């Protein structure tokens, strides 16, 4: 363990990963996991913006009961593209490919991921997939919903299903490359003394996520490939004319796409563990339980896909089993939430911006999770199936969970990635605005759904208007909150940006023992780990800046 020479080391190092090489080529051909993380940060942010624009158009259309802003056909394309882009190009890669890429090697004390070229390749593959998606979008979009259900997608849809499905297929390879890299790296590249149970919980959830990516993504790949083969070459595996079963498509699709929910939420849970420990200055309560809960979620996640198909004609017995298994997922999820809460108990809590996101996550994930249990209950699900209740539920998990986790992590590690601190006041304003805007957007949708408003329609009966207006107003607030970080993050890189120092939060973890930004190979010498992950009580680390923010 390197000693705490922090006092003299606030100034950033002269040479670090950002300025070790110059020029566009040095970025486009880099094999440094940290630079690849930055490349991914740029790419996923662009797609987040595009997906957000589609969401904005959807909410604008739903301001009034009549379908007036766009045609019904256009509306179908809007929600499809919103879903495809947000899921395949933002939520799935965001935390693993940006924060995970940056942190996994540093957190275990390695110089890089096991396969640096594969890592760079994954970014190119991701962008090729993105270009395919944009091509489909420009040609006229796709109207199947992000779920591509057969036989509509294979036979009847007159939109650009093949390039969109190909985009999802190719994007899958990029997440497989990342997941494979993480597993090999965590198995084979840990620094001396970094035992499994000394690993930060971020690594346990990255590991569990990678397992799901490896086991699930190929099944989506074959499903989309079969869809493409059926549409282009008449290899009609799902074609009812040949005795094919469209429900088989749903089984195969959800075998990946339900675990994909955990691909999106588990990394956020890893981030939250780091944030709660750092800003409570305490060891995470029940470390091993939180670690194994990640693996339990990964395993159980593969056994519950049928709960998306309660109304699709699967047998009642299968549905009952899927219903029970679905509720089992609540156990490891609840273990995490209770253990985070117990970590807060008697902790020295500070309300820095990352912590605001973590606390927001706790509330929103709990609501999203509990409504998930409701939806796992057969009777309730059949009542609210395909209504806004479902939409609200998964947005509480995806936005309230994953995006808050992602933003919390970005705010926490931004000083490490860039060496700079951002504005404290505005970042807190942004976090609170996002929280308020999010709830205003999606809580009314629970009520709308329970009252029977179906999803995926561009018009609705007038009695639903008040709640829809509230939701659209909330989306506006949410949009403002999400735009703010662009400004203060950009400002932090400018002349007025304040230097962070190696450990601005006084946090524990190998990433805080190296300089900000880190050198190309992360550490001057391979670190030797002598403590468990969150030894705040023993080490009492001090922040390198007394007031770690620009006022």
């Amino acid at each position, binding site marked *: 363990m390197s000693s705490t020479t922090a006092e003299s080391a606030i100034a950033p190092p002269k040479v670090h990963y950002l300025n070790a090489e110059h020029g566009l080529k040095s970025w486009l051909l880099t094999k440094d996991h940290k630079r690849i993380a930055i490349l991914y940060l740029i790419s996923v942010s662009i797609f987040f913006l595009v997906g957000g624009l589609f969401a904005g158009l959807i909410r604008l259309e739903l301001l009034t009961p009549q379908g007036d802003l766009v045609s019904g056909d256009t509306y179908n394309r809007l929600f499809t593209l919103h879903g495809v882009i947000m899921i395949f190009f933002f939520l799935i890669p965001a935390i693993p490919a940006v924060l995970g890429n940056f942190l996994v090697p540093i957190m275990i004390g*390695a*110089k*890089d*991921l*096991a*396969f*640096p070229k*594969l890592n760079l390749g994954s970014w190119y593959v991701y962008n090729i997939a993105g270009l395919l998606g944009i091509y489909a979008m420009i040609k006229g979009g796709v109207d199947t919903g992000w779920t591509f259900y057969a036989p509509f997608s294979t036979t009847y849809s007159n939109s650009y299903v093949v390039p969109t499905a190909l985009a999802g297929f190719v994007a899958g390879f990029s997440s*497989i490359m990342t997941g*494979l*890299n993480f*597993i*090999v*790296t965590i*198995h*084979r*590249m840990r620094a001396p003394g970094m035992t499994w149970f000394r690993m930060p919980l971020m690594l346990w959830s990255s590991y569990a996520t990678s397992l799901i990516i*490896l*086991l*699930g*993504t*190929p*099944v989506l*790949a*074959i*499903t989309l*490939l*079969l869809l493409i*083969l059926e549409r282009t*070459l*008449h*290899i*009609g*595996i799902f074609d009812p*004319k*040949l*005795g*094919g*079963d469209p429900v*088989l498509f749903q089984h*195969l699709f959800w*075998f990946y796409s339900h675990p994909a929910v955990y691909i999106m939420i588990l990394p956020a849970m890893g981030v939250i563990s780091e944030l709660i420990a750092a800003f409570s200055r305490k060891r995470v309560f029940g470390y091993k339980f939180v670690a194994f809960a990640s693996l339990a979620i990964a395993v159980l996640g593969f056994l519950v896909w049928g709960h998306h198909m309660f109304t699709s004609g699967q047998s009642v017995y299968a549905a009952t089993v899927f219903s029970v298994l679905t509720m089992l997922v609540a156990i490891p999820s609840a273990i995490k939430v209770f253990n985070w809460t117990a970590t807060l108990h008697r902790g020295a809590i500070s309300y820095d911006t990352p912590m605001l996101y973590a606390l927001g996550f706790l509330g929103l994930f709990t609501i999203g999770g509990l409504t998930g249990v409701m939806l796992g209950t057969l009777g309730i699900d059949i009542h609210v199936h395909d209504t806004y209740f479902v939409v609200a539920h998964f947005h509480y998990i995806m936005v309230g969970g994953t995006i808050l986790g992602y933003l919390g992590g970005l705010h926490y590690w931004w000083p490490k990635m860039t060496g700079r601190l951002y504005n404290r006041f505005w970042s807190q304003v942004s976090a609170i605005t996002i929280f308020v805007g999010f709830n205003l957007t999606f809580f009314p949708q629970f009520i709308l759904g329970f009252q029977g408003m179906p999803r995926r329609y561009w018009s609705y009966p007038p009695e639903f208007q008040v709640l829809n207006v509230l939701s659209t107003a909330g989306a506006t607030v949410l949009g403002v909150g999400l735009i703010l970080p662009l400004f203060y993050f950009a400002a932090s890189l400018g002349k007025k940006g304040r230097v962070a120092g190696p450990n601005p939060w006084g946090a524990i973890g190998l990433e805080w023992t190296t300089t900000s930004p880190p050198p190309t*190979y992360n550490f001057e010498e*391979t670190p030797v780990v002598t403590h468990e992950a969150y030894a705040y009580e023993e080490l009492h680390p001090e922040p390198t800046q007394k007031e770690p923010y620009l006022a």
Partner: protein
Amino acid sequence: MPEHSQSGALAHHFETYDQQREASSLGMWLFLVTEIMFFGGFFLAYIVYRSSFPEDFAIASHQLDVTLGAINTAVLIASSLTMAMAVRASQLAQRKAVVGFLIATMIFGGVFLGIKAVEYSAKFEHHLVPGPNFELHAEGADPGHAEMFFNFYFGMTGLHAAHMVIGIGLLTWLCFPAWKGRFNADYHNPVEVVGLYWHFVDIIWIFLFPLLYLIGFHVGH
């Protein structure tokens, strides 16, 4: 610190050759796991439909040429043997033997694909390719279900053949460092992991052959 820095084949981020070798073979095994799940989806669909239409599948299966299928099976097993010999030769740093065995493996792979092409063209002539022109003149078989069998035949063997082509590409790429004598006891992981991939593709065929060619043998005839 690197054990043998003179060879130059140890990547900067690894400490030892052992670590590098273990990382690359673990990586390939994990990739093969994804391949199993990938083909697994196809096999699952096969199981569903074959158990729904066992008679139709058996009758349709009789249209395949078992002799050619059996020859191809033997060819692929032979290619796996030469591949294993190439890995062994690379560990022993026998430069010419590595190249020879790699080329032998590629030749076997090429023969396999050639025979496959002969089979495909015969199916094409007999209107057994799925699509609007599909016709099957066989008693007792529902034409739709028979076409479903050929969906699987072409889909699965096509996917397998695509993997063979990729494998032959990888073998070609390996020939260059092998010819330059790059491989030795410390550094032979590229040959080893391509070998794992090649064996995997063979094993897929070992499952495909009975599932597609031999299912008629216990029904009727």
